[in-house]
């Protein structure tokens, strides 16, 4: 029952998001052609005669009535066809995949890191609450967490790229160097990944840490912790085996949601490091009124978020036997 309401909810959300992104852009001034044919502030003006303009509109199916367009679009989605990007002049799905793999790499790596770190540190600091390590961790993590990601990114560029020249300031790969081996390419990708990922990790670790710490403090008061101690278990062991699992329960959902949102949220970091990704793609799609791409990007992002929710539920069930059986 609960499941069903959830799923219907998700479907509803997708529909809302889709129609929102379908209609809002079309209600706003400007259309995809305005960029195609040289919009203000661009370098070369292209003067379109009305006939050509009309032809172009027909070509991109923008002359049909909105209801028709919407119907076609929905139909397309059902057939897994996201349409043709007007600005990029390529299938939306291809473009999305191209950007998504980078975003996933970035988000995936940093999420893995900041979650593990955040959860561990949170647990440790809760376990020694009031102690030096606790206060130290608390203050330092809350502090670094306060840096806006884009500012942090700029600082990193100045420090690591300009002053120390340790890491590249932009891009996801050294452009077109002939990689002698896969490992070389992989390491080159990691090398470019380092700064953006670190930025993300630092700006997200604080939140998870705090969640975990609070949840842990609640658990520490529980009787079963005493039981474990009464059995003579070591503190570190109790924390790991008895406390952390229970402490994770209430926060899995929140963590999953954060991760889902990162997919769209990386845009700042992507902008600072000129890292190709969905966020940037979305931004351009908005600027160029590339309706199909805009819709596609939003669909993907929403799907990822919903997926994250599902994963959260799964994990939750895995962690909590009380839900597993019934």
């Amino acid at each position, binding site marked *: 029952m609960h499941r069903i309401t959830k799923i219907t909810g998700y479907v509803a959300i997708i529909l809302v998001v889709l129609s929102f992104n379908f209609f809002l852009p079309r209600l706003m001034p400007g259309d995809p052609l305005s960029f195609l044919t040289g919009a203000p502030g661009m370098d070369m*003006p292209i003067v379109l005669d009305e006939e050509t303009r009309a032809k172009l509109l027909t070509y991109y199916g923008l002359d049909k009535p909105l209801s028709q367009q919407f119907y076609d679009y929905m139909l397309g989605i059902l057939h897994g066809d996201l349409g043709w990007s007007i600005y990029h002049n390529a299938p939306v799905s291809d473009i999305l995949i191209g950007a998504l793999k980078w975003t996933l790499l970035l988000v995936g790596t940093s999420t893995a890191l900041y979650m593990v770190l955040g959860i561990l540190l949170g647990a440790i600091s809760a376990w020694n609450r009031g102690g030096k390590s606790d206060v130290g961790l608390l203050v330092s993590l809350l502090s670094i967490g306060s840096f806006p990601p884009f500012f942090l990114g700029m600082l990193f560029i100045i420090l690591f790229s300009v002053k120390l020249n340790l890491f590249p300031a932009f891009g996801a790969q050294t452009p077109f160097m002939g990689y002698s081996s896969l490992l070389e390419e992989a390491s*080159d990708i990691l090398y470019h990944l380092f700064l953006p990922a670190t930025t993300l990790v630092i700006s997200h670790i604080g939140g998870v840490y705090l969640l975990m710490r609070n949840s842990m403090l609640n658990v520490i008061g529980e009787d079963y912790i005493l039981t474990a101690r009464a059995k003579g278990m070591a503190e570190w062991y109790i924390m790991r085996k008895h406390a952390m699992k229970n402490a994770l329960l209430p926060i899995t959902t929140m963590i999953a949601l954060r991760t889902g949102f990162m997919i769209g949220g990386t845009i700042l970091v992507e902008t600072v490091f000129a890292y*190709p990704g969905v966020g940037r793609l979305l931004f351009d799609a908005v600027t160029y009124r590339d309706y199909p791409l805009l819709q596609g990007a939003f669909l993907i992002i929403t799907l990822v978020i919903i997926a994250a929710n599902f994963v959260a539920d799964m994990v939750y069930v895995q962690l909590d036997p009380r839900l597993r059986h019934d």
Partner: protein
Amino acid sequence: MKKGKNVAVLTLVILILECSVFGGIAAVAADEKVVKFAGDLPGGDWGYPSPFGFYPRGPGYIRMSFGFDTLTWKDQNGTVIPWLADSWEMSDDGKTWTFHLHEGVKWHDGEPFTAKDVQFTFDYIKKHKTSFKWFQTLGYIDHVDIVDDHTVVIHLTEPFAPFLVDIAGNVPIIPEHIWKDVSDPVKFVGDKAVIGTGPFKLLKYNKEQGYYEWEANDEYFKGKPLVDKLISLSVNDPALALTTGDIDETSFWGRRAKAVSAFENKSGFGTRWGPSYWVLKVIFNCERYPTNLTAFRKAIAYGINRTELVELVVHGYGIPANTGLIHPDVTEWYNPDLPDYEHNVTKAIEILNALNFTDTDGDGIMEYPEGGDLEFNLITLDKFSREAELIKSQLAAVGIKINVKVMDMSTVDGILKEGNFFMVISGHGGIANPNILEKPDWPGGTCKNETYTALFKEQRETMDYKARKELVFKLQESIAENLPVYTLYHPKMCCVYRPEKLDTWFFTKGGVGIGIPIEMNKLVFIGEEEVRPAPSLAPAASASPGTTSAPAPTPIPTPEPEQPGFEVIFAITGLLAVAYLVLRRKNR
């Protein structure tokens, strides 16, 4: 367990260290001559460089022009020079052009280039008018006849003065044997779509990263290019990329040219200045009161201090604009004696008072004759918000209250087309070419003036240069007098480069093709003696072609290069995970 974690962490650390080392090595490319450049415009992706795939922007056309040639071309002095066509004649009525094509030109795939290709190209482009968005006056072409394999005759519907530049020097010739069965050219991408006659063959193109890589076309009929590889990429900060050596050339214009000062006296860097053939202008709404009053527009013109604008906003890297749109450097079209509306507040106020705009309530803001503060919106783009801020303060002195509204490009475009505005600050390039005069208030559409339109059409069909120049002057006068737009400034442009990589950069007078101000005329990379600008020929530039390691004979451009690295990364991650789990088990 503890051990398990340590191991995992350690491995990760090692990986990162090692890859930073790798990366260091990796950045150093092979010993062939590679030139990397990045435009100053944001974003590096200008579309697939096929005649129908590139985004209709200067940079897009330039990238396409590396692979495709036109019948004529321009040297750095802007004079039309033979290209695919060795010579040509025009009939007296100016309606038929005969071109004698260069012999022995080959397409990248080895097929010979013939007159049939030229004929096919024009027919094809006429057929797919909407697909070739770059240029829209192909209506003048009636039909093309083939005399022999290397002679074509192009028949026009009516005389078209700028034909040699705007059509012959602009339309890329495409191979018939490839395009003849392509029905939708826009969606035709892939290695075949970029086979042209041009000096470079597209090797790789990566959309999401905005990277292009070309290799030299060694059999190029104008001679082997100076560089073996040409790479165009997208960077977040060109100046930074230039210093870190990620790119060898970029250009800055307008306010951003301030960056040049960081390189001018720096060894290992060369700089070249040029005009941008770009103008920033105030577009008035000629249909809405009060901006529909010419006098009112004049008042605003007097109220705006363009020199201060150039000083403060452009940091001096620009010149007050020609009120007739055409860039002053383009001597053959520029009308030097136009009114420039020297900043003059009192005069502005006088004019406004004459129109019964007066500050009756003494709040420093004038009132409409009908009452109510003289206050309206000035719409512009984010990148011109600085200009808008200054103009706002300047007009405040006159007694006009301006509210700056910043919107994104497409919104502004829409508003201009709807005519739902008073004043818009916007800019565009292409002001080296009289064609730009067709719609002075482009991309707006509120200023209609039959006599002007007639005048424009007339000049376009006048084949005699002197006569045509007269008409072009008239057009500029009309703009300067009626002020459908008030031009603000022409930014300067400067390219900064590493001479040891390539020293032959130059700005084409009048712009590449139909007037693209970018310093990437393909001649730069061919460096034929007579057109090479600087006598200085950097040793690296003259590196003997033979020594360079020859790349793969046939280019295999891939629109979306594979990223095998991904698998590896995921594999590594997977391994780490496994290792971790194993150790964890052990420690139990």
